[in-house]
């Protein structure tokens, strides 16, 4: 859902962190840097921003000068040409008009070039920023990724980056030009009268503080708008996603009241924020009107006591205009700058988070070839801030063996396989694959030799073939078909409407849960790993698919080391060895036949399996 909004009330930036559970999880970095430091680092993140900046600034200066000079020149033509004493001065008028025309054209040209260059550099810089941040998100560990809502992560590479664009395209350059204009205006004014210049500054300074104060209120107001909008969209979402529940339980009236309440609350928050934001420009108008009034009064007095001529005062009054424009602009620029800094802060929050599971990269060891042996050596693990979930695990798994891991929910079996795939690192102890410490294995080697098939096989919104190919991009359609046939699934493939080209829908939702699992298995098969780790699905699929999955699994694990979290009796039965987890420890170990015969955790589990599926 992308809301192309021009107002700054996008719900994408709802403050998700505040209510996210597990506050002890390794969350994204929170910057405490000053606004100025953030701005400097932010600009430095994309070299495109500053490339060729001197030329752009020069163009901007010319364009701004042109904007100031043209009306002045027109004034000259009128005053000294048309209304010249002793009749219109034709020569002067024609000459100045020609000059003016040239000036107008040059100004327009410079203005075009400046803006075109700005768009080019800004958009290129933003694209770089997006890419850097996106890549970094993927480099973060699973735990860090899960500490944020997915939508909040997405906004770090989308709307947060977009927030920077207005400032870079418009505010940044104007800041430079306006500062220049302000300086020039001040100097020119001071030439006429330093007293009046001082007066103008004294009048305008409070405005700057006032605007800052207003902006602090404003950012609070916008935060509220985002919160309310988030709530409202949540309720509207319920009417859509929960349509069946609402009808089934007859809660239409209650939902309608919630709609009314949240829509109204959003509107009120918006109006409140609008009241503050619209106050800025009138305030600037008011201050400038006040300044004019005071300057006129004081100016006349200065004139009367003889320290200022009438011409000087009139000229000064004109110069105030030159001063007011960048001053009013400054309030808007500050607004944009604050937005941009907020955006950069959030992007930097991603970039400043060190990946806690680091790839040893080039200095890493590749895994020796052949079937993989596993050794856990006194491994302990606790989730950040949580109790210990794996307690002194020491276990050795021979190359080529099929191992089933069983245990109740919360016994530590999922953590066991997460450590095995290095989604997390153990707190204490070592994990060795073929005798090499897992921490020293280069990711390129690890990810191609060790493959995890998660419970919910995520599919991308593309074709079946593309999804399978995700594991091995160079695989041809023939190879994929061959793999499917080898897994005994050719009949299923033939039943799909477009075969390999069948679109799977968002998250694979055009396929059934069982079919999604099949695709994940094919994907693992085509990756051809030496160590296969499976987290089997619990949810009941229809029996025909279930049998298919079981069959494919048998073929997939043949000839490789495999570790499967077993939710089904059959997996445990078919394994060479069963590891029984209970409260973070391995309490039993042996073949299915051995364990069933012995009283204990496994025998109990087995009994309940038999009861439910017989």
């Amino acid at each position, binding site marked *: 859902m992308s809301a192309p909004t021009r107002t700054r009330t996008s719900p994408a930036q709802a403050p998700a962190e505040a209510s996210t559970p597990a506050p002890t999880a390794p969350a994204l970095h929170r910057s405490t840097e000053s606004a100025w430091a953030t701005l400097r680092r932010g600009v430095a993140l994309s070299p495109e921003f500053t490339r060729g900046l001197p030329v752009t600034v020069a163009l901007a200066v010319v364009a701004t000068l042109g904007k100031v000079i043209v009306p002045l020149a027109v004034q000259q033509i009128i005053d000294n040409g048309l209304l010249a004493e002793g009749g219109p001065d034709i020569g002067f008028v024609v000459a100045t008009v020609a000059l003016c025309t040239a000036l107008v054209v040059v100004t327009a040209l410079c203005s075009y070039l400046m803006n075109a260059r700005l768009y080019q550099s800004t958009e290129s810089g933003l694209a770089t920023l997006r890419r850097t941040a996106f890549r970094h998100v993927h480099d973060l560990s699973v735990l860090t990724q899960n500490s944020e809502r997915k939508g909040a992560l997405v906004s770090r590479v989308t709307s947060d980056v977009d927030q920077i664009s207005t400032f870079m395209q418009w505010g940044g350059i104007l800041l430079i030009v306006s500062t220049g204009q302000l300086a020039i205006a001040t100097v020119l004014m001071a030439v006429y009268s330093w007293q009046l210049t001082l007066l103008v500054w004294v009048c305008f300074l409070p405005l700057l503080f006032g605007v800052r104060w207003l902006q602090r209120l404003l950012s609070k107001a916008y935060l509220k708008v985002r919160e309310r909008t988030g709530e409202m969209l949540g309720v509207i979402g319920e009417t859509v996603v929960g349509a069946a529940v609402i009808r089934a339980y007859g809660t239409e009236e209650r939902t309608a009241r919630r709609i009314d309440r949240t829509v109204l609350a959003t509107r009120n928050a918006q109006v409140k924020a609008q009241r503050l934001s619209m106050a800025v420009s*009138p305030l600037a108008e008011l201050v400038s009107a006040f300044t004019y009034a005071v300057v006129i009064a004081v100016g006349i007095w200065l004139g009367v006591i003889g320290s200022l001529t009438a011409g000087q005062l009139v000229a000064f009054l004109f110069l105030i205009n030159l001063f007011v424009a960048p001053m009013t602009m400054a309030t808007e620029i500050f607004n944009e700058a604050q937005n941009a800094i907020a955006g950069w802060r959030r992007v930097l929050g991603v970039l400043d988070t060190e990946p806690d599971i680091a790839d040893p990269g080039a200095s890493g060891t590749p895994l020796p070839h052949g079937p993989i042996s596993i050794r856990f050596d006194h491994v302990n693990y606790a989730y950040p801030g949580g109790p210990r979930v794996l307690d002194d695990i020491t276990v050795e798994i021979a190359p080529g063996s099929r191992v089933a891991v069983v245990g109740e929910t919360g016994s530590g079996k999922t953590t066991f396989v997460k450590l095995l795939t290095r989604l997390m690192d153990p707190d204490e102890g070592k994990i060795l694959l073929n005798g090499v410490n897992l921490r020293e294995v280069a990711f390129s080697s690890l990810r191609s030799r060790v493959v995890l098939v998660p419970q919910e096989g995520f599919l991308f919104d593309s074709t079946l073939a593309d999804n399978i190919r995700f594991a091995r991009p160079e695989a041809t359609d023939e190879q994929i078909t061959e793999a499917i046939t080898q897994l005994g699934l050719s009949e299923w493939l033939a039943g799909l409407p477009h075969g390999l080209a069948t679109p799977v829908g968002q998250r694979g939702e055009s396929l059934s849960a069982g079919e999604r699992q099949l695709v994940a298995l094919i994907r693992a098969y085509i990756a051809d790993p030496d160590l296969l780790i499976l987290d089997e699905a619990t949810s009941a699929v229809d*029996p025909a698919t279930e049998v298919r999955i079981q069959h494919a699994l048998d073929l997939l694990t043949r000839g490789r080391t495999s570790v499967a979290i077993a939710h089904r009796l059959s997996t445990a039965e078919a394994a060479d060895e069963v590891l029984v987890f209970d409260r973070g420890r391995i309490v039993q170990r042996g073949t299915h036949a051995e364990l069933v015969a012995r009283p204990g955790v496994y025998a109990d589990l087995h009994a309940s399996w038999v009861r439910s599926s017989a």
Partner: protein
Amino acid sequence: MAQGPAAAKPDVSSRVFTEGMRILWIAIRTEPWVFSAAVAGAVLYAVAAVASASVLGAVAEQVILPAIMEQRTTVAAVATASAVVFAVGFLKALGLGARRFYAGLMQYRMQARYRRAVARRYLELPLAWHQRHPAGQLLSNANADVEATWQPLAPLPMAVGSTAMLVIAAGAMLATDLVLALVGFVVFPLLAIANLVFQRRVSPAATHAQALRSQVSEVAHESFDGALVVKTLGREDMETERFTRAAERLRDAQIRVGRMRAAFDPLLEALPNLGVLVVLLIGLIRLQRGDVTAGDIVQIAYLFTLLSLPIRSLGWLLGDLPRSVVGWRRVSAVLNAQGGTDYGKERLHGEGGLAVSVRNLSFSYADTSPADLGRDTLEGGRGLDATGNEETPRITVLRDVTLDLAPGKVTALVGPTGSGKSTLTMLLARLVDPDHGDVLVNGVDARRYAPGELACAIALVPQTTFIFDDTVRDNITLGLDVDDTEVWQALRLAHADSFVAALPRGLDTRLGERGTSLSGGQRQRLALARSLVRRPRLLILDDATSAVDPQVEARILGGLREADLAGATVVVVAYRRATIELADEVVYLEQGTVRDRGTHEELLARSPGYRRLVTAYEQAAQRRAAAASRSADQEAVR
């Protein structure tokens, strides 16, 4: 892996203009006072802006010059001068503030009004309509589309004020000098044409960029959603490349839009300036001939400079119109969608389990794939079908189904995927109405019951559960007036009490996306408790315990039989044999028709399809066991 954008070129024709004006007129009619206040603000600002120039001139001439020349003045004169200058500035500020505030107010009011209308319409529209429209699209109808529709309200008051000023200025120029006015009549249409050309070129480019922007977001969303798969297969580089491609397409589109803006803005500024210069030249000639006075020329030149800003505000308004029209069409499609659920006046009497009879029932879905929807651009109304009654092919799901559910009995619905079981449960709960045939509840047509009657008595627990962004308690009660004892009782029956008790704040724990997340099995158990707390007279479980551990499932279903459900009628959709065996009767469905019904044993004996389905898993296990014992034998022999 999202493909290129399907954003069609929006046509910026006169049709869009008239339609856009109609939309604006709706807003003006709805909020006449707010609109008037905003326009008044715009006019006040314009008048004060014009006045401020002449006031400053007058002050210079009448107060400053004489005072300084004569080296004396009166406090009264200086005070008056200052006061007048300040007053004009104050009016300017007042006008500016009023225009902005009331324009915003109007915009937000209209947004709120239509968001509310759209969301309430979602509540009224039948489930069948919801099923035809993807959730993402409906959400953006209520959010982005409503917002886009009323976006032009922000520049509207200023544009209206400007138009008035243009007319007045044109009159003033005509009155001053015909020939010089003609220059204006050349320059201003030129500006209008430049504006139009710009809108024509920029709108499609901007729409395109907007589509690319949402693609960038889609790619990121999908990639982060699948982060685990990306990570475990080591595909970070590939994903970054995919994202970079999307980001670069957006960059190029944005640069293209930016270039056009960069070219247009200076042009808009230059045109009036050039116009002034032309006026001065021609004016000079006419001055020499004595056709005009110098004052006339100055006045017209002044009018020119004054008018360049209002012209731009018209441009902003026109620029927002195409998006507004697209948004409005999509919003109206929802508001005008036909359908609703018809109710009668019947009351549901008595107590205990409901008797339900299904008579010759048929049901079909419209075959609209989500891809057909939501692709509507300005290319006319294709896409969202407003009525849902278009000639779309229909897929028959249930055919001539006749069925009786006796009060207090448990019936199992069994059948392969796609046999129509879930649809049948929805018909039983009257979430949808049949195309043909009837569903009779206690002998009365379900359509004749008053609103809420059936909803109170029938509880359907679907396979995928919806959890509201609310507390556990509210998710269970859904506004029903029950105390916590009853809530806990229902949770106990659903075997959800222990995990709820372990939640940080018990019943007050917030669930949903911004709250604690639950596992699939936990969600299902909550949904079950939600149904049980209502003490339904007909309980329908549509594979409602599929994500629950088999052990727990057996305990839940066992508990239901013993529980005080006052002899409720129960329908279960099931695959697991243990579940099926709990039923008094099994109804076996295949391809939308009832193939057989009877007890589990009867069907096992006489229905080959049923036998295959129910025993598929056991057979596989047996095959494996046989293979295992063979290899064990072989080993023993060795």
